[in-house]
């Protein structure tokens, strides 16, 4: 069982790490939350029956939500959805400071939080549309449609940036 867990760990660590890091925007928080995600996964691994990828990603997502929920309670934040705390930083700052893809990085600023979550799950965590749908409580088609809209939105912003 432990061997299998290590295989799962090796296979999905990078996806989980990037997902949480992009969602929180904070390396220190990401380190802790990724550790917590795999600790929970380790404890629950024996109950895993379905596909491991959606399973580990749902633990990662819930760990971040729990973290913000806890933070909200103690930090006296009022009322709003806990997921509002995600992507609450200049998202373009998360990427390594390379010249390439500069317009794309900047264009991500134009996305709202729900769109950033889809981008994160789809592209930075490598999830399939149906898996994202299950995780977010949406149909596969709804996720596809939203992804197409995101593409259009980003393309428009990039076009504009290139013309400037």
């Amino acid at each position, binding site marked *: 069982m*432990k061997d299998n867990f290590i295989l799962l760990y090796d296979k999905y*660590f990078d996806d989980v*790490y990037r997902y949480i890091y992009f969602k929180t925007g*904070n390396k*220190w*928080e990401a380190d802790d939350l990724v550790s917590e995600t795999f600790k929970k996964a380790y404890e629950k691994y024996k109950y895993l029956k379905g596909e491991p990828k959606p399973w580990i990603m749902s633990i990662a997502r819930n760990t971040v939500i729990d973290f913000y929920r806890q*933070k909200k309670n103690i930090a006296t934040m009022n009322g709003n959805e806990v997921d509002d705390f995600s992507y609450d930083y200049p998202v373009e700052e998360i990427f390594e400071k390379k010249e390439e893809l500069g317009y794309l*990085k900047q264009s991500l600023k134009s996305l709202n939080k729900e769109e950033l979550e889809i981008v994160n799950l789809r592209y930075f965590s490598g999830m399939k549309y149906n898996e994202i749908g299950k995780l977010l409580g949406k149909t596969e088609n709804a996720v596809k449609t939203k992804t197409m809209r995101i593409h259009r939105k980003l393309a428009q912003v*990039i076009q504009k940036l290139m013309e400037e």
Partner: protein
Amino acid sequence: MDKNYIEEQMLDLKNHIKVNEELKRELRASFGNKPKRKWKLAAIAAIAAIVCLVWVSNIYSPGVYIGHVNAASLKILNQVSFVDIGTANGDVAEYNGIVYNAVFGQGIYVYDSTGYYEIYNKEANYVSVSPDGKRLAFSDGNLNIFDLETSTATVLLKSDEYTDNGQLTWTSYEQPAWSSDNKHIIFVKKIIKQGEIHGFEVVESSICQINLESMDISKLADGSSPSFAGENQVIVFEKDGNIIRKDIRDGSEKIIDLGRFPSVSPDGEYVVYVKTEKNEKKISSNLSVEEDIDNVWIADVNFETKKQLTMNFVNYEEEGEEVDLENNSDLPMSILKTGVYSYYNPKWSSDSKSIYVIKNNNKLRNMKLMRISFTDSKLTAADTVTNFIQALISREDDYAKSLMQNPPEMLTVSNPRVVGYKIIGSGVEDQRDYVETEIYWAYTAQPDFQVQKQKFYLSYSESGYTIDEIESEEVLVVGLSKDAQSVIMKKDKEQVLFNIKDIPASYLPEEDFRIASLAFNEESGVLVFSIQIIGDDAQKASVKLITYDLNNREFKLIDQIKEISGKENVSMEGIIMDATGRYAAVKLFSIDNGEFGTSVLVYDLKNGSKGDIGSLLKNVDINSIHTKFWDREVLVLNLESDGQSMSYLYDPGSGSLKSFSE
């Protein structure tokens, strides 16, 4: 734009989010294979049984005087790893606070208050510093002297190579150690023969001394790891797994203990060594487990007493190895398990008050230089709690566990992160010792700071205090309101400390900004917070550091940081205040610095002066500096340079850095 363009670019962009490979490796090691069933219970019982004091006390040495007590009466004042030297093994020597570290295959390095830096860049495998601190003896096959004043190396004894009965044979000189009068060096001379088919064989390992004036060489014994004791009439060395004391006047030899790497203290009183204890456990009729656990020990040179200094434990998680504790074959089987740590070449400080040892973490596969300091007085309950909190902040879970009565299997530090502490009281309640503390927590780069009161209950045994129970009490939170318009504090009830619009207009930037890290000292009523000016095409990112005094409701601009280490576009990473509220350590980075190295500035909030830590180390190029915690009014830092990391202490009063060996 091509419809696949965005898709392809997005997939590529994934690779621009950097994964923390170090965390990946460390965390993976913590999920290694563990034994099954009743063995696991045995393991937990074993851990519980060996819980007693191992580690630190207050992290910097108060310079205690140790009288001549026997080895068993010495108590550990602190135990701290302060340089991470990577994967290569090595040797260590110390003179008056300067640590010399031979790293196999690399050279000789120095750790002192100016940095960790190379002084000799060729092969060096063993090193010893002369009692007058002027010369090093080191070996690379040859026996050499390195003059520390002129930085020149000369060969004392040269390895030779010849053919004996058709087999290639050579001599190798190793493990030098000085006599107390600086006039002799004791060393090992090995004669090594190439095997007929492969490999080689050590056919002789003799202990010799060389007189540095006459250059006469004499053989004293057979064995290895020699050192002189007292007036050089007695030597201590290893032979066949025993630590031997030999009087060279009459040639008598006595066994002190089982062990290896013995080293005699400069005052001639004690010998430190590494001992492997073997413990065989029968799992079933045809299966047994042999545990070979290294620990560092100390004994009186005259054999009166001995004492174990470290508290290593079984490594159940050796990477890539499935430990199946069932043997279904007919043949009996024995499984060998070793400790989480291995220890090499323990050596004494020149004042005989500390030992230095190379410690390998077998799970993470990295070597560290560790110092163990002694005292002959007992640690208080508050000292023990201090050690525990420091171990938690430093993420040295093994040490923290060793101070707990019933440590959990995994000790994770969850968010927010502990950034400081204060001991606020101690006493006895229902015949139990307790220590009251304030623990400070913060979110990196976020305006969120918390103070939690925690009460530690401890019990005392001969080996010291252990923590039985921790009770968490009230929490005070200082943070930003959800609408980001006010800084608020919540204790029993929520109160607005100030609104952003209350900040003097001259302090507020015209550009985009956000409130970043903050820290609060309840006793002084001073809140220190930062304004992150967000960089864009028009302006550079920078940070303003401001204090708000709750007593007189006054704001004071402490500094605007536009540049660190010659780089613009400065971003805030965190602020930690000392327990008195006088000093604030501010961790920043520049996004123009491609390596994301962080810098630390320390402000005296009383007089506004500041110290730039990065400018204090003359002998080393620093890539990154991290604040760990305030130990009273001394800041504990970790510095990274060229793949190595090292710890230092900063005293804002004198504005100077201090090494852990001073």
